[in-house]
C-alpha cells in the first residue's frame, strides 16, 4: 500500500433538465491518477470553469460520491466512509483550502475559534492552553502569529492573510494531503506568489502532499511536480509539470498556454526589488 491517494476511473454525472427532457451532464469523465505515499509532491490540476476540477476535488474530500469508479485514500474507499469515527479519522489526514478566503470563515464569529476547535479535535489538545500553543505553531508555519489573529473577525484582515489562516488551520491536524481549490484566485495579484511558494515550503519541510487546483498556468509552473490538464471532465494531458508546460502537446494545452498574458513585452524582466 504505497499509494496515498488513488483515483481510479472516476465518473460523476449530474442529471439536468426538467420533466420533458433529461440531460446528463458529465462533470467528471473517466479520470485516473495516483499520489505516492513515500514522496510528498505538489500535484496540480489545471482546468477552466466547467472542466470538472471542483467536482473532482469534492469527491476526493468525500463531500460528494462518484457515480462510478473508486477513490481510495490509504487503501480505503473514500465513498465508504460513514460514521463519525471514520469521518474524523479521514479528516485528520485530508484537509481542504477553499477558493474564497472571505467566505471560508463565518463573518459573525472570531477567527481563532476555528483554530482552537481543530486543535482540540485533531491535535489532541486537552485544554485551551494546549490548543493555543498548537494554533500558534501552525500560524508560525505560514508566517503569522497568534497575537495578530487573536480575537479578530474576518473583515478585519486581508484576503491574503485569511488564506494563510485557512492554511494554518488545515495544518494543525498534521495532514498528509491538502486539497487546495483555487486558493489564490481571489487573492490580490501581489500576494499570490508568496502564498503559492508557501505550498512549496510546506511540501519540503512538513512532507505534506498538496493537490493544487487552478486555472492559472503561471503559478502552476512555479511549484508543481506533476500536472494534469482537464477539459469538459476528462484529462487531456498529464505528466511532469515543467515538461508539459514548457512543451505542451495537446491542442487544448497549447491553446491554454498561448492565452497567458505575459508581462514581458519583449523587454528583459526588471531587476528584483531592493
Amino acid at each position: 500500500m504505497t499509494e496515498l491517494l488513488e483515483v481510479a476511473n472516476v465518473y460523476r454525472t449530474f442529471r439536468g433538465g426538467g420533466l420533458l427532457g433529461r440531460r446528463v451532464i458529465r462533470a467528471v469523465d473517466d479520470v485516473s491518477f495516483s499520489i505516492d505515499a513515500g514522496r510528498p509532491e505538489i500535484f496540480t490540476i489545471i482546468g477552466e470553469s466547467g472542466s470538472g476540477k471542483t467536482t473532482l476535488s469534492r469527491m476526493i474530500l468525500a463531500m460528494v460520491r462518484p457515480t462510478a469508479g473508486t477513490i481510495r485514500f490509504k487503501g480505503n474507499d473514500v465513498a465508504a466512509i460513514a460514521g463519525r469515527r471514520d469521518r474524523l479519522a479521514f479528516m485528520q489526514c485530508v484537509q481542504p483550502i477553499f477558493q474564497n478566503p472571505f467566505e471560508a470563515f463565518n463573518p459573525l464569529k472570531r477567527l481563532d475559534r476555528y483554530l482552537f476547535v481543530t486543535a482540540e479535535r485533531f491535535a489532541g489538545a486537552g485544554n485551551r492552553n494546549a490548543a493555543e500553543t498548537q494554533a500558534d505553531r501552525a500560524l508560525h508555519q505560514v508566517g503569522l502569529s497568534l497575537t495578530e489573529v487573536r480575537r479578530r473577525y474576518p473583515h478585519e484582515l486581508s484576503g491574503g492573510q485569511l488564506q494563510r489562516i485557512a492554511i494554518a488551520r488545515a495544518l494543525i491536524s498534521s495532514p498528509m494531503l491538502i486539497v487546495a481549490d483555487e486558493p489564490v484566485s481571489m487573492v490580490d495579484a501581489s500576494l499570490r506568489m508568496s502564498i503559492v511558494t508557501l505550498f512549496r515550503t510546506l511540501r519540503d519541510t512538513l512532507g505534506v502532499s498538496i493537490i493544487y487546483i487552478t486555472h492559472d498556468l503561471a503559478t502552476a509552473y512555479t511549484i508543481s511536480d506533476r500536472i494534469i490538464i482537464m477539459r469538459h471532465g476528462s484529462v487531456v494531458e498529464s505528466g511532469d509539470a515543467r515538461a508539459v508546460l514548457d512543451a505542451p502537446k495537446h491542442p487544448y494545452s497549447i491553446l491554454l498556454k498561448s492565452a497567458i498574458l505575459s508581462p514581458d513585452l519583449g523587454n528583459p524582466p526588471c531587476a528584483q526589488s531592493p
Partner: protein
Amino acid sequence: MTDTSVLNVRDLRAHYVLSAFGINRSVSAVDTVSFSIGRNEIYGLAGESSSGKTTLIRTIAGAIRPPLRILSGTIEFDFAGKRIAMQAATQNDLAAIRWKHLSYVMQGSMSVLNPVRRVRHSFVDFAHRHIGGTIPDFLNTVRAHIERLDLAPRVLNSYPHELSGGMRQRVAIALATICRPDFIIADEPTTALDVVVQKSVLAMIRSVQREIGSSMLFVTHDLSVHANLTDRLGIMYAGRIVEEAPTAELFRNPLHPYTRHLVASLPRIGVVPPVTTDLAGRPPSLADPPSGCRFHPRCPLAMPICADQPPSLRTVANGHRVACFAVGGAA
C-alpha cells in the same frame, strides 16, 4: 496636455462619512489624486483591494451618493468641446452624457443586461434614445455593430442566461460602444473570465477602442492585463497614485518600491523564482491611514521624512511620475 485631454482629475479628495448607530467614521478612500487621460488613449489603473480605485471610478462616473462625498477637487470631462464637471453635475447633466459620451463595462455583466428580457431589448433601453430613428432601423444599426465585433447576430435574440460568461461580457462591451462614446470606464471586465476567453475579450476591447477612437480608463489589479492592453499605467496605493508612466516604461523601469514589488511578484512561465519575500504588513485601513506617505510602514527605503509629509507626484522623466522621497526627489 490639458487641451487634448478628455478627462482631467485634479486634487480629488473623496471620503465616506459614516455616522449611524453610535459609530462615527470617516474613510479617506481617495486622497489628492490628479491625473489626466488624453484622446484615443487606454489608461490603466492598478491597485490591490482597498486601494481606493473603486471609489475613484464611482466619482468619475458621477455615482456620488451619501455616504460618499467629494470633499474637494475637480473632475472635468471634455467631450469634443462639451465640458462637464462631474463633481457638480446634476441628474439631468448626467443623463445627457450617459452612454452617448460616457459608458461603462463592469465586472458582472449581468448587472447591465436585464435578465428577464432578450438582449436586443437592453440595447433599445440603453441606446435608442441617443441614436434615434425607428426601432427597426435602430436594430439594423445594432446588428451591423455586433457583426463588426465578430459576434453572431443571434445573440440579440437570446436571454442573458443562455449565453456564456465570456459571451455576456462581449455583449456588454458591444452595448457600451454602440453609441461610439468618447470615454469608456472598464472596471475589472475580464477578471471573472477564464484565461482563453479573457484573451479574446481583451482583443475585442482593443480593436473596438481603436476603431471608435474613444479613451478608456481600465481598472484591474492584474498587471499582466495592463501590460498587454494599456498605453499608460497608474499604480494606486491606499487612496493615492504612487506612480504613473507609459506602460512599457513602467515595466522596464519601475521606480516606486511598491511598484517594484508588484512587478517582481508576477509569475512567469519558464521562470522559477526563489522563495519570494513578502512585503511586511498589509495595505492600511483607509479609515485610519498612516501619516505622511501611506506606504512608509512597509517600505524598505523609508526615511524619517516619509512619516511626516506625504510625497507629491513629481515628473522624473518623460511622462514618468512618481511619489516618493527616496526615488523621486524631495517634495
